[in-house]
């Protein structure tokens, strides 16, 4: 493999219901740092059908080039079609780095693409950097439940591929003056042959605010005593524009669906603010949230392990504290209005 033929940093944009989703902009923030250090172009790749929204926005948020494949056959995610198109794009334009978000889309398409290209892929990174001299991507990720961090590289294969944790990084400040180049690609009909048939999509209100995509996550555990007390967490989350998470214990009790579970056998998150309410902090739970930027814990037990990872903690009964907190926040919001 001629490694030096490969140049540039690509980010895999995501289109949901025809619109470019926010992770696409976050990825540009991840990619910008790498592209600047390597002195190469930063690109966004967008596959979709009748893509609404401004492709220019991608330039405003950091892209120098946007590759667009817009075809009616790309309305839904057919993995074989998408991976075939990415493979063709990579073989034609040879980027040295490809990053995608660790969403259900990214975590499906990236291993497929890496297998087709026979290259390395590192999942769910929380930090990316480059060794400029060697032009090697340094990918740091938690392993064994966040208790160990590993830095991984793909020294001899290209492209170097990684997925990054959604919402671990903010999009760049928008620069409306920034412009870029759009490369529109078309592929012949055989590219769109698929072994999949899309049937339907049903919105599910219970996953309306997916915890992996929220900047703020308010999680509850056994200390809430009853499933109906989760309502308070939803009220609190609403005030903070956040989502509701839960410990495994709360999910096992049937208080909240599995899609909300945070931890080793649930979701691993890095939101900007995480509040653990009535959660003692089993190793498995801490593994799923310890990389959050700011952590607040509320628990009755002063020795609860959750306090060790908290930036701020209150030792007390969550069921007494929550109503006061919610009221206080309502007052705050009203004042600001």
């Amino acid at each position, binding site marked *: 493999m001629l490694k030096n033929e490969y140049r540039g940093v690509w980010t895999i944009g995501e289109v949901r219901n025809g619109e470019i989703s926010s992770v696409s902009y976050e990825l540009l923030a991840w990619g910008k740092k790498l592209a600047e250090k390597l002195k190469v172009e930063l690109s966004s790749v967008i596959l979709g059908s009748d893509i609404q929204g401004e492709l220019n926005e991608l330039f405003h948020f950091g892209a120098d080039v946007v590759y667009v494949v817009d075809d009616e056959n790309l309305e839904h995610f057919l993995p074989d079609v998408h991976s075939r198109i990415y493979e063709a794009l990579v073989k034609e334009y040879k980027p040295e780095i490809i990053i995608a978000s660790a969403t259900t889309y990214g975590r499906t398409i990236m291993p497929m693409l890496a297998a087709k290209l026979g290259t390395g892929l590192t999942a*769910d990174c929380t930090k990316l950097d480059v060794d400029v001299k060697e032009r090697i991507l340094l990918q740091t990720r938690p392993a064994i439940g966040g*208790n160990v961090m590993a830095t991984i590289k793909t020294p001899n294969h290209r492209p170097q591929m990684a997925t990054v944790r959604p919402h671990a990084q903010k999009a760049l400040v928008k620069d409306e003056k920034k412009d870029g180049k759009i490369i529109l690609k078309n592929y012949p009909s055989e590219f769109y042959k698929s072994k999949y048939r899309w049937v339907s999509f049903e919105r599910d209100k219970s996953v309306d605010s997916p915890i992996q995509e929220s900047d703020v996550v308010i999680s509850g555990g056994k200390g809430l005593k009853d499933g109906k007390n989760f309502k308070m967490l939803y009220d609190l989350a609403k005030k903070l524009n956040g989502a509701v998470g839960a410990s495994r214990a709360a999910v096992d009790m049937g208080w909240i669906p599995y899609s909300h579970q945070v931890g080793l056998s649930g979701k691993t998150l890095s939101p900007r603010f995480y509040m653990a309410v009535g959660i003692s902090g089993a190793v498995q739970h801490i593994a799923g949230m310890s990389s959050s930027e700011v952590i607040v814990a509320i628990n009755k037990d002063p020795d609860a392990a959750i306090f060790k990872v908290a930036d701020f903690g209150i030792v007390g009964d969550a069921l007494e504290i929550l109503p006061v*907190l919610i009221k206080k926040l309502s007052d705050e919001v009203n004042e600001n209005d």
Partner: protein
Amino acid sequence: MRIAVLVKEVPATDKVKMDEKTGTMIRSGMESELNPLDMYAVEEAVRIKEKFENVHVVAISMGPPQAVNSLKEAISMGCDDGYLMSDKNFAGSDTLATAYALSAAIQKLGNFDLIFTGERATDGETGQVGPSVATQLGIPVVTYVSKIEKISDEFVRVCRSIEGGKETVEVELPALLSVVKEINEPRIPNLAGKIASKSKKVPLLTANDIEVILDKVGLSGSPTRVVKVFYPKLSRDGKIIKVRDLESAVNELVEFMKQKGVI
């Protein structure tokens, strides 16, 4: 119908304690278990076997010799056979090399209509092996499967649990499905299952047996390299207050949230 279930043996995290000073895991005697998320894959395969006639379920794992225990557990849950791929040539395989070896074993054992995997393993947590196996076999993969709606000879119709809701897709067989925890409640093996698994021989498959190209497995077949491993300091030494007066405790919390820009 022939079904394969890919399983992995992982450190038993339930038995893990954290060293408070170093923030590292203390693994008591390195106990291992069947990856908890793989149990949903095993359960789903066994349910298909119970529902339809002439279904044969084979569990396959790659790992050290003791991983035979995880295969025995899969058999005790209802799998018909188990195969352990164990060979020093496999050591150090990353997800691409692991998936290559697994796909070679699948081809060797032959003619599977469906392949199940768990969403990811609780140790490596990549979730990459399933999609990579399918791609290396040239068959379709459906990830995050939370329900199987219909199975025919030619296709399956499944629901995927994705951001914002449920997606339903149909896919041609053979196909690989990676399932999530919502899909079922794995059974606890009964006595008959346990007895069956005790007497069941789990054949060993070496690199030679499955006819892999040696350069494509183990460290030499792995594009990725670990540069360094370090232990993050988990303890934040945050400010912990005790509630004496509810109002003032909450006020202090709100002040903290303001200072951090949350409000």
